[in-house]
């Protein structure tokens, strides 16, 4: 199973990286005349209303999918295949970056709490409790609603190098979303790091180093951090999956800064579910596959490294 996971994960990473080469057309390029085309091989007919000289008429409209748009098009005639490829970039970028930020801040807080103990620990952990009492999604929605959807335009190196002409020149990173998902998920890292720090602190060699006058910072970096690494790596893997799910929920609810995101596309297709079901279905499958891949790799790491991370899974 681990192999399947690695294949899926590597696949998603490759797709996200080389989206400009794999896409058949720019993801934002629209063509209203080619809207709502089903995936290749499917034919879809629906009754539509047309106005002829202001008179309403019902016409039956039959559309056939073709390889021009292998996964069909949405209501703007955008190519769903290309959009899904680019959506992987957003998900992965937010997932990884959000996890890294959560990890750095969470581990720092956790180590400080665990190592200094006493009041510092009490204060920081009560704060962590408060964060846990806030449902992450609610907090994220509030923060994004409040901070506004800031974004960061990152130039696409392939397009800049002239290797993929016509594709978007920049990639839009939803900055607020990234920060917010990190902000609501750092607690899990803090709890792990604190636990490890508490255990290591009591070990004799640490006590000895301490009595020899080693500084706390040095002790933390030299003894505690290496020991905590295994569970943190496993947790980080799982967190990438959790954050991808959270990001998709947020863009589904319309709290995002980019419209190249799987959640966004799912929401776009929601009102056309009865007619053009593929608009929501395809990006949803993409999320499921990507997250399955990451979870499988996480399981594999967990089995291989066998850390004790208990219930620290985080969530939406």
């Amino acid at each position: 199973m681990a192999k399947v996971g690695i294949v899926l994960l590597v696949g998603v990473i490759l797709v996200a990286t080389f989206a400009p080469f794999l896409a058949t057309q720019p993801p934002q390029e629209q063509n209203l005349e080619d809207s709502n085309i089903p995936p290749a091989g499917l034919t879809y007919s629906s009754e539509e209303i047309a106005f002829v000289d202001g008179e309403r008429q019902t016409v039956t409209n039959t559309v056939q999918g073709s390889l021009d748009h292998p996964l069909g098009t949405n209501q703007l005639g955008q190519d769903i295949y290309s959009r899904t490829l680019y959506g992987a970039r957003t998900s992965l970028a937010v997932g990884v970056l959000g996890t890294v930020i959560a990890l750095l801040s969470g581990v720092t807080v956790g180590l400080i709490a665990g190592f200094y103990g006493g009041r510092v620990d009490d204060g920081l952990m009560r704060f962590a409790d408060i964060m846990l009492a806030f449902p992450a999604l609610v907090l994220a929605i509030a923060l994004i609603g409040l901070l506004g959807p800031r974004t960061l335009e990152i130039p696409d190196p392939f397009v800049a190098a002239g290797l993929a002409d016509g594709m978007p020149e920049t990639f839009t990173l939803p900055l607020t979303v990234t920060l917010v998902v990190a902000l609501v998920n750092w607690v899990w890292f803090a709890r792990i790091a604190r636990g490890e720090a508490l255990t290591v602190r009591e070990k004799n060699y640490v006590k000895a180093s301490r009595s020899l006058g080693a500084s706390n910072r040095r002790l933390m970096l030299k003894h505690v951090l290496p020991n905590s690494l295994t569970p943190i790596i496993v947790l980080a893997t799982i967190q990438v999956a959790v954050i991808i799910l959270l990001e998709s929920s947020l863009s589904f609810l319309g709290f995002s800064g980019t419209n190249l995101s799987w959640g966004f596309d799912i929401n776009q297709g929601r009102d056309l579910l009865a007619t053009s079901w593929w608009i929501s279905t395809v990006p949803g499958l993409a999320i499921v596959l990507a997250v399955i891949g990451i979870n499988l790799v996480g399981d594999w790491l967990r089995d291989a490294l066998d850390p004790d991370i208990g219930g620290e899974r985080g969530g939406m």
Partner: protein
Amino acid sequence: MRLTRFFIRRTLQGILVIWGVVTIVFLLRFITPGSPIDFVAPIDASPELRQSLAENLGLDKPIYQQYGEYIFNLIQGDMGYSFQRGLPASEIIFRRLPATLELAIAATVVAITFSIPLGVISATRRNEPVDYVSTGFSLVGISTPNFWLGIMLILVVGVQVEFLPTSRRIIGFGGALELLVTEQNFLGLRVWLSHIILPAVTLGTYFTALIVRLTRSGMLEELGKSYVEASRAKGLPETLVTYKHVLRNTMIPIITVLGLQLGTLIGGAVITESVFDWPGLGTLVIESIRQRDWPVIQGAIIVIGLGFVVINVIVDALYAYLNPRVELE
């Protein structure tokens, strides 16, 4: 005595958490661009109308003063008036609460009913086809965003099969029950059930999958312990070993995990409610955030926070009860 001390201690901690939550909400309020008055006042309101509306809601006072007054009123159980709805925030919240509770409980029931047997079967028949099916299901379950699952259920069940209603809570559980008791009429219950099934499945799937995974791995770990062999050696039937000993010990850590995952449940409820137009706290919170209806946002988050605190006290108590090596502290 110890029990009393435990509860006093936890109550104080709970109050601290709630206070922290309120404070953070006010901090958020402070840094939020735009005033709630933009949402109260009509889009073409004159400056005077805006001003007098603001005064009316107490929004003209400095934020620390609003904060102080809010805390003062909260202690007396008053959450203030909704900016948008002309009703006390608490009344709006408590009217919506049953819908969310029903959904959360139904989802939990779904999760527990399916997950524990699946997890047990998976662990006791490791590497058999049934285990592959169950681990496969749980992997997909924890990897599927629940809003998409909801949409797919609507697509498949609602639009294509037209089997279950995909929205609306026609009748509350209380009403259905009352109808049953007073009129011996099962229809209310049936209608309630038919409406709650899809949302409950949507919300419950992630937890089903999560508990299956936890149960399976926990049981496998537990099954490797010597006491299991000892129990078999003394002649206990396998079912007794599995359920009374192994599963029970497996559940002890799982209960803690589930307590921690309550936030996920509530987050999931928010989005499930939004997909199914379920008139609960989740949709209320989203609406209120969109309208900057702070008294309702604050109230709802306090209620959620309270739920979190209470559930976790219960979890800790249960943990200590089930695990004799742990003492309440």
